[in-house]
């Protein structure tokens, strides 16, 4: 079941919901910035991860969603149950 729809139609259909998602994220980051002691979390791991996620969104596709998932995942070590 590959996508048969033209890219322009997908973009125009989804534009408002994508705009909403970006606004939600922007507002959430503003909320963090308004919090007390904002400077103390400048190197917080979760903030760094969010910045990493934003960088993935700005890069060329495909596979952005999978790359974001991997950013937020523990590493797997093959042979974990051997020896």
């Amino acid at each position, binding site marked *: 079941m590959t996508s048969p729809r033209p890219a322009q139609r997908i973009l125009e*259909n989804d534009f408002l919901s994508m705009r909403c998602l970006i606004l939600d994220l922007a507002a959430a980051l503003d909320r963090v910035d308004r919090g007390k002691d904002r400077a103390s979390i400048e190197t917080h791991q979760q903030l760094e991860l969010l910045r990493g996620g934003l960088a993935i969104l700005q890069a060329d596709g495909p596979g952005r969603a999978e790359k974001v998932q991997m950013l937020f*995942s523990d590493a797997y070590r093959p042979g974990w149950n051997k020896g």
Partner: protein
Amino acid sequence: MYFIDPHVHMVSRVTDDYERMARMGCVAISEPAFWAGYDRGSVDGFRDYFRQLTEFEPKRAAAVGIQHYTWLCINAKEAENVRLSREVIAMIPEFLDRPNVLGIGEIGLNKNTPNECQIFCEHLELAARTNELILIHTPHLWDKFKGTHMIVDMLRENSRIQPDRVLIDHVEEHTVRLARDHGFWCAMTLYPTTKCTPARAADIIEMYGDDRIMVNSAGDWGPSNPVAVADFIQELRRRGRSEAQIRKVVYENPLEFFAKSSRFRFTPPEAR
């Protein structure tokens, strides 16, 4: 359109939810055993729970025209109590002849600990010995990628487990290939915040095809939506998918997988 929700915890939902699901087109559900929100203290607690899953819930579902199936296990969250887990695994065969039992599940990993792995493997042994289908929970969030790999490793190391009799649940963008490439069935869970949204689940179907894959609500006692499968149907319709394409994922695929259980009996809504 008729649909099947292959993973929903109706013991945590009110009868209004059954009625809402029926009105939306749900004709059957399967309900894996799971964590109650607290650790149960004895094997008799599980025996009572399994009676609820095999006696009471089928009646409650039937009252609104929904056929109810179930899966039995001790959840990974309780696997740290190895002694209790083994008592429950030993007790499960008491219920394996109940007509709505499809197999062993939802077994799997939660925090990817050694005890969870041990109890998962003992559940696999039970399923292999009794020739039962297997429904697998994969971990949430950070643990999912690593835990899904570990689960697949353990499944592949047991030569008596047939991949086409195993459903790996809660797959997302980074784990769906892992399940499908090794011949397992898989399912996506539609949750409000974690797991998949209807749009992302539709994207995964577009990218990886509609064979051996299904979607569920995993509705439970937490934030969840027991009619989420209907939202997924709407998302595919919005994208211009045919009714036949949608029906394969939300109706025919669950039926094909469930039919591998010798106890599975299903009356199509058209035949009632």
